[in-house]
């Protein structure tokens, strides 16, 4: 088997070290890229990121990365994994610090956990929480149907009418923890900080056809 090469998109939002070291641990090669032309040519993309939706989306736009990602994923069919903010940016829009349109790979929007649904629970939602997968698919292969993953976020996507492979986590409300629509993958949790559960999931993404 030839070496798998992964491009991690660097758009200045948070720590990319742990994503890189998790991928290297699995035996794949990683490059950190921010050039739109390279993004269009990459077969496997990862958008990591923590921070505010508004700032994240603007960072993609300022670098001309947003259009390159859409071209790469939609027109060229390259596969992509969005992690945490990276997954949120794949939605239709976010409401953190003002409305902002997303990459719109899925129609779900990103809003904050409401006071009613939290019912006294603390924000941010931080720590390992149980994730339930909807069915046995390649993305979740090798993991128990309920597995623990590390989250740290204050905004979430609801499942809405997303009709695809997905996983749910409960924190006051059931929210979207992960999904796969064809070549587009997203996780609200951090697989790179979720011990062996995360390594298994990253391996599944990298090996998926």
């Amino acid at each position, binding site marked *: 088997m030839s070496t798998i090469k992964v491009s991690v998109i660097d758009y200045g939002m*948070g*720590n990319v070290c742990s994503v890189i070291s998790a991928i290297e641990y*699995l035996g794949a090669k990683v490059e950190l890229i921010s050039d739109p032309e390279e993004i269009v040519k990459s077969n496997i993309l990862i958008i990591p990121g923590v*921070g505010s939706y508004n700032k994240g989306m603007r960072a993609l736009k300022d670098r001309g990365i947003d259009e390159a990602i859409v071209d790469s994923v939609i027109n060229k069919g390259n596969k992509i994994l969005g992690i945490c903010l990276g997954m949120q940016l794949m939605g239709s829009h976010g409401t953190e610090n003002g409305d902002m349109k997303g990459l719109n790979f899925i129609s779900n929007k990103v809003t904050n956990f409401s006071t009613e649904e939290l019912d006294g629970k603390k*924000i941010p*939602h931080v720590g*390992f929480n149980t994730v339930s997968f909807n069915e046995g698919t390649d993305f979740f292969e090798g993991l128990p149907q309920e597995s623990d993953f590390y989250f740290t976020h204050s905004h979430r996507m609801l499942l809405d009418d997303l009709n695809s492979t997905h996983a749910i986590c409960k924190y006051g409300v059931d929210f979207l923890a992960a999904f796969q629509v064809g070549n587009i993958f997203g996780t609200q949790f951090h697989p*790179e900080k979720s011990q*062996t559960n995360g390594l298994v999931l990253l391996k599944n993404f990298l090996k998926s056809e």
Partner: protein
Amino acid sequence: MLKKRVIFVLLYDNGIFSYSRNFCLQKVGDLNWLKQNYNFSHISFFIDELIILDVSRGERDSDKFNDHIGALTEECFIPIAAGGGIETASQARDLFKHGADKIVINSLASASTEVINEISMEFGRQSVVISVDAKLEEGKFNSWINSGSTRHTPLLEWLTDISKLPIGELYLNSIDNDGVGNGYHLDLLDSLPESFPVPIILAGGAGKYEHFADALQDDRVNAVATANLFNFIGNGLEKSRNKLLSNGFNLAHWDSYIALKMKNILI
């Protein structure tokens, strides 16, 4: 269900990892010592998070500290928080760049909240951990700053102020119990204002499994931390975690032994 956490804390003193007792530091060993005595890439699969604090007294060599963070975080797939003496947003940016997911702020919070606001705007409030050191004096808890050398305010007052900041977690440490190994100072939790908004990491005093268990039973505690380099040496953390799990404590599950099989699995 959201899990509670067991956190290992490394106190870094100018290139040497140290043991602290009532905030007096004793040098223990360098990175090689740590790797030999803790089999670090193994033990990291038995903790939920790692906190690395630069507690060097006097001038800090931040480049050297950053290099140590880089070395420790290789093959360590958990969240890393780092801090110690942070005064500017650019110092925080440097730590994020070298592998920290969160930064820990202590004395700065008493001097200026501007930098905290700036970091929180840029990296999100979940990435800011506020550390508070407390000491019991004449029956009342006071907060102390500057590595426990300066009395600040009554603890309740300080925690009330802190609860209004854009932060993600509180690291609450007992100076009296620090490094003593006789258990956590659970009374500290009585100084929390009602419905404190962010998760609480309790630190200072863990010496054995039972101390973790006592603190984790308390609803107000979201995570327990230990910086005791002696009491959990070897596989002490692994044993404690396994015992907590088998006694039904609400900790995350993963199969630690898959890790070896995952290494280079794609080659």
